[in-house]
């Protein structure tokens, strides 16, 4: 390797934003590589968003198309709202990774390849008849072939490690190369390795060496003539960390229970992509967190409801298939009027569907997926970091209104990450809980005049012994009642109680002109793509605005007025049109759905194109008039 001093000075170019994807076999450590590159980028001051994409199988056969695992990152000197549409850079560790991901690489984009990964065996597994490195199929791209395996092996040769161990350090060699290419500091990755492998110092040494070797190789070898600088983004001052939606959800619950001053209880059954919340909370017992890995989804929510009866801040976490099973207990919770937060981290359905892929097709189930008149408040997080505040808000509403609350996130939010301005726990909104202790004038269903919620009584409180249950109850006493008018009164009061939660919802933020040609309405994880698309449309001079809903039931009080101020309303959703149906029913507006159901988030360009088409359509109509 040439001596550093002898290296000719390489050219540096400035870039605003870069979208990079690391792709390889699921055993190649692409998720780790991506996360380390993310940390480096955050510390370099860029705004960013990430999207992991991994196969459902833990280990699909090595080298096959089904086994490809990828991690995408968009980092920029401007505000970032999505992990990016098309790739500026693709790192492909083997032919399968190339085949699966090449379609997303921009023409002229950078393609970094481990040449040795393109052997005959791997080409066959990836169903290539001949090597794409040897025909003309990659001429549209800047291809950088490096002997990653050989170079890694050379860097580690005196460590006496097995070939397999050496092979597994290749990802850090690639991280080193890309870190140099984009001026990322590699010290955070080194620190991470030292901590991760503190019990096996030889692995620390091996990976650090591979990382440095990759960095030095990129700097010194003739392969790369140019490196790129992405300046820090202007973002709100404060202390940040990178956070995934699932971690943010877990932390939001911990903070909320802490504010209430009661234990946090999670009853849950493992399911993709929700299990990480169970994992996170199970490691936070010191915060008075009780986690029960139940025998099934039903028991998970049942145990949570039992804990709620006992005065805990009770939650359950699941994904679509589990939601089906929890419906019965959610119905019981709303009948007995106990606080409970049910988090549905949506994934592609129906049935088992595509467990690791994202979708937002559970909204109508959350709204209507129970027998009888059974309204529950529904909240939806918009970004990974937003999961924190929405989890917190879900608890606040649940305990204030004595009701189950459904919190919707999805696989994209759960595993995606973004920088999070770390909040001050003392400044989080108050969550006041007033357990009833006074037997004088007590009835189990005596309602608060404003909120219509019933008293929460801790079993163990003398003089307040009472029974609750799923049978219809007499309005005040809670005694079992089949009286016809009482039933209607109870149905109506439960509905009024939930509808009254509208008073908790802040005015909607309309981004863009107060009236105009087009309003784009979204909910959940489409926030990023819609925001970026609307910005681009506005910059192009269109009279387009955006509102994003975090409260789906009840809907915000000002939504109807806002919808009517625009000629067109477009509702992009990762389903066949669920929110759009609610909006049309509720407000009698001619909202139009824009639907993508591919297990992947919208691309910004897709939304822009659809909006432009709508806007032009309007122009055509007007001209025709």
């Amino acid at each position, binding site marked *: 390797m040439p001596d550093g001093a002898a290296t000719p000075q390489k050219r540096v170019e400035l870039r605003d934003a870069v979208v990079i994807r690391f792709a390889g076999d699921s055993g190649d450590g692409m998720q780790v590589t991506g996360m380390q590159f993310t940390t480096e980028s955050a510390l370099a001051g860029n705004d960013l968003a990430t999207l992991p994409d991994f196969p459902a199988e833990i280990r699909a056969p090595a080298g096959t198309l089904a086994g490809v695992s990828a991690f995408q990152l968009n980092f920029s000197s401007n505000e970032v709202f999505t992990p990016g549409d098309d790739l500026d850079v693709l790192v492909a560790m083997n032919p399968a990774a190339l085949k699966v991901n090449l379609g997303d690489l921009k023409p002229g984009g950078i393609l970094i390849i481990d040449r040795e990964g393109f052997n005959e065996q791997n080409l066959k597994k990836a169903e290539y008849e001949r090597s794409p490195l040897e025909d003309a199929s990659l001429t549209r791209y800047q291809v950088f072939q490096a002997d990653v395996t050989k170079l890694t092996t050379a860097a580690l040769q005196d460590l006496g490690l097995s070939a397999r161990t050496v092979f597994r350090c290749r990802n850090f060699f690639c991280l080193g190369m890309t870190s140099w290419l984009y001026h990322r500091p590699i010290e955070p990755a080194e620190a991470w390795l030292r901590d991760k492998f503190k019990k096996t110092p030889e692995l620390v040494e091996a990976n650090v060496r591979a990382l440095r070797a990759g960095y030095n190789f990129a700097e010194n070898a003739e392969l790369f003539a140019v490196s790129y600088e992405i300046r820090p983004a202007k973002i709100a001052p404060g202390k*940040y960390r990178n956070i995934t939606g699932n971690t943010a959800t877990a932390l939001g619950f911990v903070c909320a229970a802490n504010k209430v001053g009661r234990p946090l209880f999670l009853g849950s059954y493992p399911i993709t992509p929700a299990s990480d919340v169970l994992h996170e909370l199970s490691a936070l017992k010191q915060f008075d967190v009780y986690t029960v890995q139940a025998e099934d989804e039903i028991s998970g929510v049942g145990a949570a409801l039992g804990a709620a009866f006992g005065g805990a801040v009770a939650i359950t976490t699941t994904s679509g298939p589990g939601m089906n099973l929890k419906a019965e207990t959610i119905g019981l919770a709303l009948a007995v009027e106990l606080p409970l937060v049910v988090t549905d981290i949506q994934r592609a359905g129906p049935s088992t569907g595509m467990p690791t892929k994202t979708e937002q097709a559970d909204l109508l189930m959350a709204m209507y997926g129970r027998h009888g008149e059974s309204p529950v408040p529904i909240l939806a997080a918009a970004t990974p970091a937003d999961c924190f505040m929405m989890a917190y808000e879900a608890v606040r509403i649940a305990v204030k209104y004595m009701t189950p609350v459904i919190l919707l996130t999805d696989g994209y939010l759960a595993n995606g990450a973004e920088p999070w301005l770390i909040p001050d726990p003392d400044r989080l909104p108050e969550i006041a809980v007033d357990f009833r202790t006074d037997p004088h004038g007590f009835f189990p269903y005596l309602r608060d005049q404003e909120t219509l919620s019933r008293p929460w009584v801790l079993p163990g409180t003398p003089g307040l012994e009472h029974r609750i249950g799923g049978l219809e109850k007499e309005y005040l006493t809670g005694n079992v009642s089949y009286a016809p008018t009482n039933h209607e009164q109870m149905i109506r009061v439960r509905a009024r109680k939930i509808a009254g939660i509208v008073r908790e919802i802040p005015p909607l933020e309309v981004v863009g002109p107060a009236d105009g040609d087009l309003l784009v309405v979204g909910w959940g994880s489409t926030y990023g793509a819609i925001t970026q698309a609307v910005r681009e449309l506005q910059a192009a001079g269109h009279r387009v605005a955006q509102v994003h809903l975090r409260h789906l039931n009840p809907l915000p009080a000002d939504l109807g007025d806002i919808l009517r101020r625009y000629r067109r309303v477009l509702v992009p959703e990762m389903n066949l049109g669920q929110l759009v149906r609610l909006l049309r029913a509720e407000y009698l507006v001619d909202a139009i759905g824009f639907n993508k159901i591919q297990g992947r988030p919208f691309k910004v360009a897709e939304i822009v194109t659809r909006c432009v088409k709508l806007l032009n359509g309007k122009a055509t109509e007007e001209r025709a008039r």
Partner: protein
Amino acid sequence: MSAPGAETKLTKKDFVSDQDVRWCPGCGDYAVLSQVQKVLPELGVPREKFVFISGIGCSSRFPYYVNTYGFHSIHGRAPAIATGLKATRPELSVWVVTGDGDALSIGGNHLIHVLRRNVDINILLFNNKIYGLTKGQYSPTSEVGKVTKSTPIGSVDHPFDPIALALGAEASFVARSVDVEAKHLQEVVRRAHEHKGGAFVEILQNCNVFNDGAFADVTEKASKADATLVLEHGKPLVFGKNRDRGIRLRDFQPEVVELGNGVTEADLLVHDERNPALAYLIARLGPPRFPTPIGVFTAVERPRYEEALGAQVEAARKKSPPDLRALLDHGDTWIVR
């Protein structure tokens, strides 16, 4: 116990709620309710610390009639609800009242897991071998050939034995009693309460409307002494009107033997509540070849779920005192100015 509220002496009346009891006249549930209400004031627990949780079925109406905290939940799910309550409120005395359909059919999964975990709750399973509330379909404890509305030419399902199932699920306390055996039932309920760990009690209960006389042999005066084997810890397995018969083990097979003619009590199996293997063997006894065993089959101590869970929370708190600020401010952070 010097818990507040326990100072004034409680009586049965304190555990009678203001609700009208609505079981069919003659239902065995009345007797069970009455015996439980008699035992509760004697347990040294303040009334407000009792919680009765039930599922769906005739038996599951039980909480409405006991003047404690109560939760009439959904079909089969009471053990799950009780687990969450007991996990976070271990100081409460939590009872689950259930039936053969509720616990063994729709709630079978929750039952076996709550027993496996050894959550310190008391489960009273009223077994009448029939679905009563839905008006007479066969249940998972109904005998093969049972003719009901849903099995007009007889059920082809092989039944569960609740005791064997509970033992198989690693229950640490397993007992059986009979609705009309007032003293025996009281004693078993008391033992269940005193047991530290999950207690499972099967109560043979007569549904006089849909399955009358299902347990007539163990309740009728004329037959019960010969049809019932009363288990007592440390005592040989003797039964019969004249206490002249017993259970002996030969070639690992139990058999009924007459005492006398060289056969003495010393030849009989001796009951040992601490031996689950023996409990399982006794659980397999029953008609037509054997009397129905009643009493405590097994009572063993092992770690309780809520205690272990609470200990983990406590240990975690000691190891790293809770610090929300540090929790949020975790990992790689950076400052934007």
